């Protein structure tokens, strides 16, 4: 693999890490399997593209975050107030959001940002202009992780984590868990949208189907991170998610480099996640098999 391809994988990894951290919030912190992600990712990207075309690439990021956060809140309300199972609630919002995303994009299936201003041009005229491609994602990632870590250490953050662990306990401590789920799902999808917003600008285009399988990729990153880097402390966990996202991108880059057609990407993602999820069972089966063989 060329150095350039390797660097590209790391940059993509840093961008996708923001989405993976969002998936970490819903799947791990809140313990809710949230499928909204596949569409809220596109919402962030679409809003970002529209803002870029209007000449506001930086404003595009908070706008993408907010729009996707709203999508997450809809899923949360379907779950907490209308008592629809989280999986189904996520699927419903994902489906509905597809039409909304198309509307945001002005009923086009894709938007090119090739001749539009993006955040990656903001360092032009400074000595760092050539480094913008990796400096900006890195800076954004550090900002997100720093803020999130601080947030999870606040009172609100404590209760949010407690809600994922044990809703019954949190209610017994006098907190409305529906509100916590609402806030948590907003945050999770907001991060996913932010990632979409940055990625659209990085690749200079936004496509209505760019979110397909995103939740699986996010989950793959989370699990790879957990397996390789551990889950000891909160900080370690966040770091693991980021590194997991980067490792995932490097693995994919290698596979592509070895001649895997890019159309097989989704299949490979699905297999990676299946393997990672079934690891504990496979391990147990293996030990049992060994025991039996020894007699």
């Amino acid at each position, binding site marked *: 693999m060329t150095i350039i391809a390797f660097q590209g994988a790391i940059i993509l990894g840093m961008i996708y890490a923001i989405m993976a951290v969002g998936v970490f919030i819903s799947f791990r912190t809140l313990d809710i399997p949230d499928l909204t992600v596949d569409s809220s990712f596109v919402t962030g990207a679409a809003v970002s593209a529209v803002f870029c075309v209007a000449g506001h690439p930086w404003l595009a990021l908070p706008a993408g975050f907010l729009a996707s956060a709203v999508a997450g809140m809809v899923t949360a309300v379907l779950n907490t107030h209308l008592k629809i199972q989280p999986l189904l609630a996520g699927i419903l919002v994902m489906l509905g959001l597809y039409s909304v995303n198309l509307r945001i994009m002005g009923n086009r299936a894709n938007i090119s940002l090739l001749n539009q201003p993006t955040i990656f041009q903001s360092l032009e005229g400074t000595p760092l202009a050539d480094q913008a491609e990796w400096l900006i994602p890195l800076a954004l990632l550090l900002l997100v992780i720093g803020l999130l870590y601080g947030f999870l250490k*606040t009172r609100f953050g404590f209760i949010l984590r407690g809600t994922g662990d044990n809703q019954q306990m*949190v209610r017994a401590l006098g907190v409305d868990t529906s509100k916590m789920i609402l806030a948590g799902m907003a945050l999770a999808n907001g991060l996913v949208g932010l990632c979409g917003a940055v990625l659209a600008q990085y690749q200079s285009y936004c496509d209505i189907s760019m979110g397909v399988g995103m939740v699986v990729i996010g989950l793959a990153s989370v699990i790879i991170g957990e397996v390789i880097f551990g889950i000891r402390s909160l900080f370690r966990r966040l770091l693991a998610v980021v590194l997991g996202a980067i490792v995932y991108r490097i693995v994919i880059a290698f596979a592509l480099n070895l001649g895997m057609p890019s159309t097989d990407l989704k299949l490979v993602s699905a297999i990676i996640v299946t393997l990672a999820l079934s690891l504990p069972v496979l391990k147990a089966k293996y030990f049992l098999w060994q025991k039996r063989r020894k007699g």
Partner: protein
Amino acid sequence: MLEIQHVSLTFGQGTINEKQALKNVSFTLKDGDFVTVIGSNGSGKSTLLNSISGVYEMDCGRIFLDDVDISFWPEYKRSRFVGRVFQDPLLGTAYAMTIEENLAMALMKGQQHGLQPGISSKESAYLKEQLSRLDLGLEDRMKDKVGLLSGGQRQALTLLMATLVMPKVLLLDEHTAALDPASARKVMELTREIVGKNQLTTLMVTHNMQQALSYGNRTIMMNEGGIILDLEGEERQNMTVEGLVELFNQKNQGEKLENDRMLLQL
């Protein structure tokens, strides 16, 4: 003061599994009352506690806490005034968070939980001091995850969490039933100490008749979703476990007879 007035509660209303778990239950807990609750399995003890804490909606009836009608308050809102320890040690704590973080969440009860630090150093010192009172050595393991603790340690911690901010009513639902005898004894000791020192109004479900008589100042017996016995004062002081079992059997016998009669009628 906690007043329960004519509370009925039915599970699965209108379905084949319809079950009336509480039938027109009324009683009043005076401030500082420590009431033990006994009754056979399925007699509605847990349901009674759960309807006080707001887990289930009642069919009818009213619940007043210090003269405030809380009948329609959601569970989380009642929790500010109602402390709870469940039978299952897993239910009372967040397993993936540290002992200190769990206690900090309990300390926030009734306060704003905004973006201030989860634990200040002052709070940390206070929590450590409170934890040392349990006499379990947990104060040296503040940064350990609760998932590492034994059932007994968790119940002790949950008890402390439920009373860190003093509730108006403490509800204990067979909170030592899942523990080994030594841990159960320890947790009961702590219960007596914490309830006694703070004069907490307490409702404690137990399946241990001896405990029912030796703890608290009043004992109620439930059967088939109703209160069939309410012992207090001298009558209770003179009551023995044998006497209680006798009474219990008598009441059940009556019901058995009734069932037999119903069978005969068929």
